[in-house]
């Protein structure tokens, strides 16, 4: 099987195809996650900062998780597809599904990140004379970044996985190799496509993890501490590290 995959990937005839499909897949993922982020992250910040609408966030993210992605995809494609013409009929409904699926993890991550900021830090910021917006941008958002990134990663993986499935509804991207290979029983093509999709998902996750490392303050992640610092915070660390928030599920 490995030989089949390697020889399929190595064939010169497939190279242009692979590059084109890879580009499409990355394009869909960035476009859908980007649009979703523009909606979800400000909304999550507002809800986390003001404390209004918490109930809605918890329920939306719980409810969204229970809807099977495949069912949602086919429902929206069948519903919107006939109203659109040309290439748009294939592209837009799938893209809408990707955006809809990317919103809940980022909304929940942003909200939870801001909501879980230590009240003492918030009070200290106010005590220093910061206004509401300053507290949000200088204290709450930096502290919330790890969870915001965790939501972003969930959303990206969800979008990459669902874009693959959306190939059955006419979307381009790497999913085409899996679906076209399946329809003609060409296992090497399917398997090679599956390897490419898996590699893309891992690569995207890695890239975001690196960005997260660069962006998130060391004071929050606790890296590069001296030995004395570490001994001092060990007792508090234990209680902090136990607050894990499941921001979203993918696939």
């Amino acid at each position: 099987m490995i030989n089949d995959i390697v020889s399929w990937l190595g064939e010169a005839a497939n190279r242009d195809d692979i590059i084109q499909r890879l580009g499409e897949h990355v394009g869909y993922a960035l476009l859908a996650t980007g649009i979703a982020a523009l909606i979800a992250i400000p909304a999550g910040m507002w809800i986390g900062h003001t404390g209004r609408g918490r109930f809605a966030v918890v329920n939306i993210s719980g409810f969204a998780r229970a809807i099977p992605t495949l069912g949602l995809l086919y429902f929206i494609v069948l519903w919107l597809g006939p109203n659109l013409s040309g290439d748009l009929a294939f592209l837009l409904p799938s893209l809408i599904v990707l955006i809809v699926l990317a919103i809940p993890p980022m909304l929940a991550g942003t909200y939870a990140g801001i909501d879980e900021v230590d009240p003492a830090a918030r009070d200290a910021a106010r005590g220093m004379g910061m206004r509401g917006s300053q507290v949000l941008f200088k204290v709450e958002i930096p502290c919330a970044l790890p969870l915001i990134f965790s939501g972003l990663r969930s959303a990206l993986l969800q979008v990459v996985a669902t874009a693959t499935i959306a190939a059955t509804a006419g979307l381009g991207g790497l999913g085409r190799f899996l679906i076209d290979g399946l329809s003609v029983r060409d296992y090497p093509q399917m398997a090679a496509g599956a390897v490419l999709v898996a590699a893309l998902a891992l690569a995207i996750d890695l890239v975001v993890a690196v960005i997260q490392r660069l962006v998130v303050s060391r004071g929050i992640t606790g890296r590069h501490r001296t030995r004395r610092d570490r001994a001092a915070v060990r007792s508090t660390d234990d209680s902090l590290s136990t607050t894990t928030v499941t921001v979203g599920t993918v696939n």
Partner: protein
Amino acid sequence: MDWFTSHLDDVWELLVTHAYLAGVPLLIGLLIALPLGWLARRFSWAYPPLIVGTGLLYTLPSLAVFILLPGILGTRILDPVNVLVAMTVYTVALLVRTVADGLGAIPDDVRLAANAMGYRPIRRLLGVELPLAVPVISAGLRVAAVSNVSIVSVAAIIGVAQLGSLFTDGFNRDFFPPIITGIVACGVLSLVFDIVIVVVTRLLTPWTRARTAS
């Protein structure tokens, strides 16, 4: 509604298969994740590789896994075993971290008190630490249950019959009733799993109720 009532038997059969494909891996996955999570908590060198490794497994898109597993396991592509294995992998990937964090959240005083009462490490783990970690583990299991129900339906694309088959069927015929039935049935199944987990958790943690009652 007419479509649903006239296909009640078919839908029920698909629902049962779906429950089997999503539910059995939940149990096997929990049984695998418990020792792995304990390992990650017990030996600090084991924590990073286990958490990163299971995290990477979870990033793999489901359709890719469903297609690659037959090549790895030597099974036929339509074999439901592929789905069972894939879902077990996803469950383990979600739960190892939960178990490790659940065990890690137990206060040191509790551990010391158990030691003072003469508990040996294994009895302390099974009799004190694990029961106290049940609420955290159960929260992770609820997430895994809902996510499994959704992921299993993707297997309909490669032809493994379950509730997801209603989606592909409806899509191929440009026909809404099976799709809506499938979405509702998946929701009901998720709800049933959720209720079962919550009830079992309550039975396993009688002390949480004693506290609220007083």
